[in-house]
Every structure is written in C-alpha cells, then in structure tokens.
C-alpha cells in the first residue's frame, strides 16, 4: 500500500499535528511507507483460525465496584490550568 503526500497531510490534520514544511511531510511519507511495507509483510502470514488479539497481555479486565472513591480536588487540578473562571476551565471560544 502506497502512502502519498496528501495522506500525510490528512493524517496530520486529524491528529492535529503541525507540519512545518513540505520537506517534513515528505520525510513522513518515507517513514510511513516503510512502516506500511512492514505491515504488508505481516499481512502475508497465514492467520486463518487464529482469533484477533486486541491486547498483548493474556488476561482480562478487572472490574471495580460501583463506589465513589474520589474527592473534590478541583483547586489542585486547576492550579496547572492556563485559565479558569467560576470553577470552569477556559478554552479558546468554540463555535458550533
């Protein structure tokens, strides 16, 4: 599978990554192409009859009892926020 310049720009946009130059984007085209080549090689392995693995650990999710265990630590968390008001985190205006 070939990856093109436009694919890199699109992926970068979706991930909100800023690419500084065409040269930087071109570097990612090369890197990602090599990664996808490796994926192609993996795809060649016969995996018929093998259940897909979603997680490398051979164990299952532990469940937590439905209890409130957290206390209010708003002041501590908001101490490292750039801006707050009336207990709210402030962010650049979002327009729907």
């Amino acid at each position, binding site marked *: 599978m070939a990856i093109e310049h436009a694919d890199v720009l699109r992926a970068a946009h*979706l991930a909100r990554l800023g690419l500084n130059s065409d040269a930087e984007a071109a570097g990612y085209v090369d890197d990602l192409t090599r990664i996808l080549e490796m994926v192609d090689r993996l795809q060649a392995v016969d995996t018929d009859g093998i259940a897909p693995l979603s*997680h490398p650990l051979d164990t299952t*999710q532990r469940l937590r*009892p439905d*209890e*409130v265990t957290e206390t209010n630590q708003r002041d501590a968390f908001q101490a490292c926020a750039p801006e707050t*008001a*009336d207990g*709210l985190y402030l962010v650049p205006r*979002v327009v729907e």
Partner: protein
Amino acid sequence: MQWETVIGLEVHVQLATQSKIFSGASTAFGAEPNTQACAIDLGLPGVLPVLNEGAVAMAVQFGLAIDAEIPETSLFERKNYFYPDLPKGYQTSQMAQPIVGRGEVEIVLDDDVRKRVRIHHAHLEEDAGKSLHEDFHGMSGIDLNRAGTPLLEIVSEPDMRSAKEAVAYIRALHAIVTYLGISDGNMAEGSMRCDVNVSVRPKGQETLGTRAEIKNVNSFRFVERAIEFEVERQIEVIEDGGKVVQETRLYDPDQDETRSMRTKEEANDYRYFPCPDLLPVMLDSAYIEHQRSTLPELPTEKRNRFETRLGLSAYDAGVLSSTRPMAEYFEAVLVVCGDAKQAANWVQGELSAHLNRENIDISNSPVTPEQLGGLISRVLDDTINGKAAKQVFAALWNNEGQSADEIIDTRGLKQVTDTGAIEAMIDQVIANSPVQVAQYRDAAPEKRGKMIGYFVGQVMKASRGTANPQQVNGLLKQKLDEA
C-alpha cells in the same frame, strides 16, 4: 409520488451508577463545576481507567431484557476526535465487539398494534463534558463533571416508518430502562438523548435514500417534530430536483426546524483502535445468569398480563404498565381490594386527577395504595356509596384520617341500607314538600321519571349522602306512586 420514511435511532442512555465508568468520581447531577472530575476523567498523564462493574451489570441487564445475545468477550476502543470537552482527545467507546449484540424491542402503536424493532447492538461508552458558550471574555467555559459518566448507546436498525413509530420506540426504551432501574430516564436532565437518522424513498423502492442525522434531540415531542420537519424538507429537496446530502443537522425547537451542522466529509474517520489501557471484558455464563435472575417483570410482560390475566382493556393495561411506579401502585391497590377493574378505575380516575392537578408523581402520592385499596374494598362491600367514596378519598388525600374505615366511622358515612330508616327519611321529605308532591302526582307517568330527581336529592341530603341511592329511588317511586 408516494414517499416512505425510514428512521433509525441511536439512543444514549445515562446509566444510574454512583460512580463514573472508569473512575471513582461521583456522577451526581447538579454539582459545582469540575468538583466531580478526577484525574482519570481529566485524562491526566499516568492514570489508569478501571471499568465499573455496575455499568457492566446494567448493560447486561438491558441486553437480557431485549433478548439480545451477550457475547463472552467485549472490547473497549478509542474513538479519536478533538473537542475541548473531551480532554483526552478520544472517547473510550466500543465498536467491533460491543457488550450487547442483536436484540428486539416491541413497540405499541395506535389501536394496540404491535411491531418489533430490531436492535443492531448496544455499547458502553463514556460521556463528554459540557461546553458553556456564555461570555467568558471571548472564551468558552468547560465543565468536566459529566466527563466519564457511563452511557449505554442503543443502536436500532432502520425499522421505523413514521415519527409516531419512532416516539413509540423511545417510549418503549424509556419504559425498559426505568423498569430495570438502570437509568432515571430523566430526559430534561439529559439522561436519554437521541440521534435520529432519517431518510425518505419512493414507496416500493428497496434501497435506502440518503440520510440526515439529527443530533441530540431530548424530548419525545421534539423527536416527533424534528422528524416531521426533516421528512418534509427532504421530500421537498427531491421533488425540486435536488439531492439530499448526508449530513448532521440540529433540531431547533424554537424555530421548529432542523439546520445543517456540518457535512460529514470526514464521516467516521475516528480512527478507532483497541484501548491499550483496558483489557478485554470477559463475562461468563454464571455472571450473565446472575444478572438474568435480577430482572424484574418487564413492561411488555406486565402489559400482557394485565390484559390477559386481569382482564383489563388494552388501553388500561397500557396506561397502568407505562411506568414502573404506576404499575407497582396499581398492583399494591389490587392486592388489598382484589378487584382489578375497580383498582384500574380509581388509579386512572380519582387518583390520577388529583396527582395531575397538583403535579405530584405517583411515587409521592399522599394517598398510599393500601389506603386506596381499603377505600375500594368498602365500596365493593357496599359499606359506602360512590358519593361518600369520593369524600373519603378527598379526606385521605388531605391526610384527615389514617384509613378509609376510620374516616367512614368518624364522619358517619356508612351507607344506610336499612329500609325502615330510609322510609322514615322519605316520609319526612314528602311531608315537607306538599307542592312538589302535588305536581308529581298530577304529572303524566312518562314525565315523573325526571321529577323524581328532586326527591332523591332531598333524601340524599337528609341522609348526608349516606343513603343507598338505588334503594332511595325504588322506595320513593313506591311511596309517591301509591297515592
């Protein structure tokens, strides 16, 4: 051209857990902003989400209630997008292996017509926070208390063909989740939110038309109106030679219209992948059977039983099974009085009228089911007549007595059925009304039926409402006609 409407719904149900789906922060509604948003909810570095068993149990109960398959393994994935009320940059959700598989919900339409709506699947996910766009000096304010609240997203097949069917479906879901107690079902507080997929196609055509998705419709009435508006809009677009575009629209209740939000050019490019922080969830059959054993009787079962076993009309059965508190109240009344029809009449009549007038929920009724059952028993055994029963009910409502029996006693409302006593009152009334008696006796027999009402009223008044009205009527006729 004849058009057919095709509707599918995605309903987000907020689960009634105490704590969040992946953290121990409280889910209580209405707290001060960000006082219930912990490090996990904020997506701070180094935190590890741990799945809430309560949310799993509720999802499984819902699945069992709609006869769905519960897969042994389900999986959490990350749905990636950027929005300030989603601090992690992804929503933890499920896609490839949801916790609830295919199922079915029965809906009831006009004239008791039943229809089955297929459920594609239901999955667990976390809610996002809330953005407040009031003026914070050109900034938006973010409250993350809701972030991490467990949601069950129930996805239907496109099986509904009208706004009415869509509303009936949401009502059915609402009844199921509130019967199960897995959600408070409070639509005004956002406990149930619907995304409505609507398309139209020429009648008889197999392939589906292009659909628009109406986001976040949060009342039964708005669902109906949003669909009706959207169907008209789409038909108009097509009949004017245009094409419906696949897009997300918002319903504006003030203007009663839907408006385009954004075209879905990047539709579904959420780059889902398995969440490395959460392991596969395995549910064995013992766990599932345990959840099954906790299921209450469900709305459809109750409705059917009320109709077939208790002999109620389809209408009565529908109303009385519509909510769990209503059904439980009715059944508690029935246990005391033993007469389903009378219990149904009183609950839907006198009781509902009082509750509606004062806007009180049946679970907070000042008259308990035991008191109402006791009152109905005294009507059934002829201790009191219908008129006195209403007085007793009013007294119970105003907390002027502990029981119907007490009120009947202290107010002397016991029905007088003693012929001698009634005759004495009648003689008195006749003696006091010579003019009316003369008029009655001069009148033609076919006119007397109406005129007797005056005398009945006088005797009932003399008995302070306690005389048996049928007896009064019969005896009066005898005495007036005998001369």
